[in-house]
């Protein structure tokens, strides 16, 4: 989190932080400058309520902290207390919103939404009333892939969310389990756009979390914010991150974000670019970190902060320069995609053959998604 705070303060990137209790002790959060807390979001991360992973245990309101050996039947009993303490924590810390957490389930039983209401949402709404906060309330929603792509399931989810007149917005997490680093499912991307659009049509604030570069694509539906995840596992949601039984896996390959290519490029191709593609540096944009990283003796590894501080810098700039109104923004994103595809073409012409995680193959689905989304808007006629 230190890099995030530094980048936010010294590089003036982003508009706030999303605080992850998994990675940050409660006392550290409380010690953050109030100016940072006021424009930040606290993600309670009740995804796996039995988890005691990381620093979750430093938060007394976290279910597993409150009740060791937590069983599902205990959850409803203790949630009232957890909710009130969690809401109070967020209000006393003066975060921008009060965030209602959610629970992650692998499979969705037919009464999934009702269960969420009973186990978490209603206790938290009650706690907000009891605490008497006037901060806007965000409801965390994990939309699983089937809920994003299947219209009936998407409708049911949207009806559920929008039927709650005591929330002000949604902290939206779009789950897409995939083997590639980027989402390449045009139907999923289109479904995501439709969800964001529907929420905005209902005047709800939308903060998209755990996204990667597709945050640029999502922007055409008008969300209020998209996330910039530091590491790879923060740019795609997975419950495994919260699972204490998970064995630590190998560090990923170092990658660097290219705003021109709308992609993180693996180091294995950066040296090939240096060798064979003139003007290669311009693909990565300018940041205070490029001159260091592009020195031949720079020791590339995935834990180097420069990689992520560079990303914060250039991605933040990309998002800030997105056009308004949304129709204009979509044209701009289309142009960005066309330009990126052009670059990928010249990269290949130069004899560089990146694999499917660095070759821009996620971009044609963006085009497909935008076409699908436009047809949807036309059909809606609203």
């Amino acid at each position, binding site marked *: 989190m230190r890099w995030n705070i530094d980048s936010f303060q010294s590089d003036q990137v982003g508009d706030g932080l999303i605080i992850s209790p998994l990675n940050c002790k409660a006392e550290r959060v409380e010690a953050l400058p109030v100016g940072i807390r006021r424009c930040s979001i606290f993600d309670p991360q009740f995804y796996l309520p039995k988890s005691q992973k990381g620093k979750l245990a430093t938060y007394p309101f976290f279910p597993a902290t409150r009740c060791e050996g937590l069983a599902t039947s205990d959850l409803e009993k203790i949630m009232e207390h957890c909710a009130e303490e969690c809401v109070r924590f967020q209000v006393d810390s003066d975060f921008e919103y009060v965030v209602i957490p959610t629970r992650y389930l692998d499979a969705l039983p037919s009464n999934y939404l009702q269960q969420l209401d009973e186990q978490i949402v209603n206790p938290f709404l009650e706690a907000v009333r009891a605490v008497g906060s006037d901060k806007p309330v965000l409801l965390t929603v994990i939309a699983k892939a089937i809920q994003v792509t299947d219209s009936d399931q998407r409708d049911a989810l949207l009806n559920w969310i929008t039927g709650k007149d005591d929330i002000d917005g949604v902290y939206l997490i779009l789950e897409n389990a995939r083997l590639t680093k980027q989402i390449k499912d045009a139907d999923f991307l289109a479904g995501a756009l439709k969800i964001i659009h529907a929420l905005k049509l209902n005047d709800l604030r939308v903060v998209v979390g755990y996204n990667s570069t597709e945050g640029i694509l999502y922007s055409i539906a008008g969300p209020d914010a998209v996330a910039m995840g530091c590491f790879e596992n923060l740019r795609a949601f997975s419950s495994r991150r919260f699972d204490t039984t998970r064995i630590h896996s190998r560090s990923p*390959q170092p990658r660097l974000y290219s705003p021109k290519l709308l992609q993180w490029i*693996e*180091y294995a191709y950066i040296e090939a670019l240096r060798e064979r593609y003139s003007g290669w540096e311009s693909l990565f944009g300018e940041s205070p970190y490029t001159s260091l990283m592009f020195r031949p003796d720079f020791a*590339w590894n995935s834990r180097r902060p420069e990689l992520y501080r560079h990303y914060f810098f250039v991605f933040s700039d990309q998002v800030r320069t997105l056009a308004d109104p949304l129709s204009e923004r979509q044209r701009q994103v289309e142009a960005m995609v066309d330009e990126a595809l052009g670059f990928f073409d010249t990269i290949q*012409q130069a*004899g*560089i*053959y*990146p694999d*499917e995680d660095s070759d821009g193959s996620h971009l044609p689905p963006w085009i497909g998604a935008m076409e699908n989304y436009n047809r949807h808007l036309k059909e809606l006629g609203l």
Partner: protein
Amino acid sequence: MSFRTEDEMSSRFLEALVPKIERLGAWYLREIDSGIGIPDYLLVITSGRAISYIVGVELKLRNWRRGLLQAFRYRNFTNEAYVVIDRDHIEPALANRQHFLRAGIGLASFDEGGVFEIHVVASPGKPFSKLLAERITVRVSEALSDFDWDPEMTSYEFVRTNSRRRSLIGFREYLAKDALSTFEAIKV
């Protein structure tokens, strides 16, 4: 007749080429993890106690495209890289030879009878990444553990010692050599 599995192809490949490789004074190493990929073979040519040249080889029954992408990655730490396809399935790769030419990756075919043919000669050159090339020398030195300490050896760079065996392998950057590539020299 086609190979049934890549393992079968690999065994036959080794059988046919080992004598040629050894005549050249090269070493072959199987499935060394480079950190960014595991080549089926690394052909390592040493000069004294230094590694002077590395060729990466990727065997594929038919998936030339996957082979090309993998072999291209190996160019981060090799001087050349080749994709060797089962001869019975070489046609699609040949129809796309322009990609191999453009990438500078060699394309060869091999069959059960031991016939090995190079269709596109790899472009030799420096490894793209000094960092990854240095790392592979550590891995290679661990594999080639027969070398003894030789303080007379001049190596381009000292990378790391294998403390247990006190081997010292350096990697000397190899600039472009003459037209005939090393791999071509060992073809059947």
